[in-house]
């Protein structure tokens, strides 16, 4: 175990704990955007900037990626730190002014919509949570970043229909800005996949990854419960009885 000091409070944590985790343990709030406790720390958004004491004065690090070492002294709310957080939110607000998470964060930090920058109106802020979730949680790696620099965006390969997406919606769940949309199309309705075919419900469309799925119906209750392709893929990986996915979870129980 190691002991570190955050905002004057001593905290004892296991070795390898990040500053963010240690702060959360003590109830100190550090804002984050690209962080998710179930995913590998990324350190991209820089919103969790904190000030740590080093050999030559203090330095700014991202709390989510910095592993604490014994005796570390951390400040999470200095003027320097707050200015950085405000700056990050200002920059991102001009990217995605309509994102609720950014509006809330702006309010909490006292940031007003910056007038100098023309709004981009792109909800994806390249935090990469969907990319990591698809790789680390789902194990599919259907999407990744495309391009670099300002053009960087989460996308399916070649910006075309994803061949690997199984329509599980994990990416939708982790996306902080609501940039990823999943539409469930009801029976009797029709909808079009971006750049693709028109599907009849029951179906599911992942707009960002330009892919649509036919939904499997439960043989007992008749309700659509999961994309057929997803069930096929799961059956390939996990050995299950052939008829396992004939019924939905509710009816199986």
């Amino acid at each position, binding site marked *: 175990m190691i002991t570190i000091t955050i905002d004057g409070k001593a905290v004892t944590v296991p070795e390898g704990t990040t500053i963010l985790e240690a702060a959360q343990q003590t109830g100190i709030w550090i804002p984050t955007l690209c962080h998710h406790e179930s995913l590998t720390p990324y350190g991209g958004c820089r919103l969790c900037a904190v000030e740590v004491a080093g050999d030559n004065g203090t330095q700014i690090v991202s709390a989510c990626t910095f592993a604490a070492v014994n005796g570390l002294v951390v400040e999470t709310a200095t003027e320097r730190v707050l200015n950085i957080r405000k700056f990050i939110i200002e920059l991102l607000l001009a990217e995605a002014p309509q994102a609720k998470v950014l509006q809330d964060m702006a309010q909490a930090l006292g940031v007003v919509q910056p007038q100098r920058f023309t709004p981009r109106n792109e909800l994806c802020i390249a935090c990469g949570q969907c990319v990591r979730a698809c790789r680390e949680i789902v194990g599919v*790696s259907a999407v*990744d*970043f*495309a*391009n*670099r620099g300002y053009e960087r965006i989460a996308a399916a*390969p*070649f910006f075309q229909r*994803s061949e*690997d997406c199984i329509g599980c919606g994990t990416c939708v769940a982790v996306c902080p800005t609501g940039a990823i949309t999943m539409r469930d199309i009801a029976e009797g309705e029709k909808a079009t996949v971006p750049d693709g075919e028109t599907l009849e419900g029951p179906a599911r469309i992942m707009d960002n990854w330009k892919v649509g799925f036919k939904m499997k119906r439960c043989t007992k209750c008749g309700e659509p419960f999961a994309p057929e392709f997803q069930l096929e893929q799961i059956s390939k990986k996990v050995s299950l009885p052939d008829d396992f996915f004939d019924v939905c979870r509710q009816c199986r129980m």
Partner: protein
Amino acid sequence: MKSSSKASIAAILKQYDSGQDSLISLMQDIQSAFGYLPKEALQQAGRELDIPLSKFFAVASFYNSFNLEPQGKHTISVCEGTACHVKNADNLAQMVARELELNGDEGTSTDRQFTLKKVRCLGCCSMAPVVKVNDDIHGSMTQTKTATILNQYRKDKK
């Protein structure tokens, strides 16, 4: 994809083990065989080496040297290094774009004879401004000299 292309991918893939370590080198080999990275080739490589297609695309769109589209017969690279910039390399690139009637400031001409690229420092700063046509580097370029070289390649076609 033609069966001959499939064969050449197979020959390339033979030199690689599964896993991501040699991904860039593999993609460089594919590009030198095809002139760009065809989606089908990457799909095949992904299947055989157990690498997701999304990783290929991420890497291909990250690095400057990978082409995801077929290229023109000749590639004209106008150097945009600092030494070239202070010697008005911008004007050279714009002149070539005008000559090739490109829509943007880079791209491939409609007859597929030329692809114009602006590139980062070619390391021939002593000869600035520099224009590279295919593998040949031309130094101390002017708009007039660039036009002459362009016409040379056009003539060679005929």
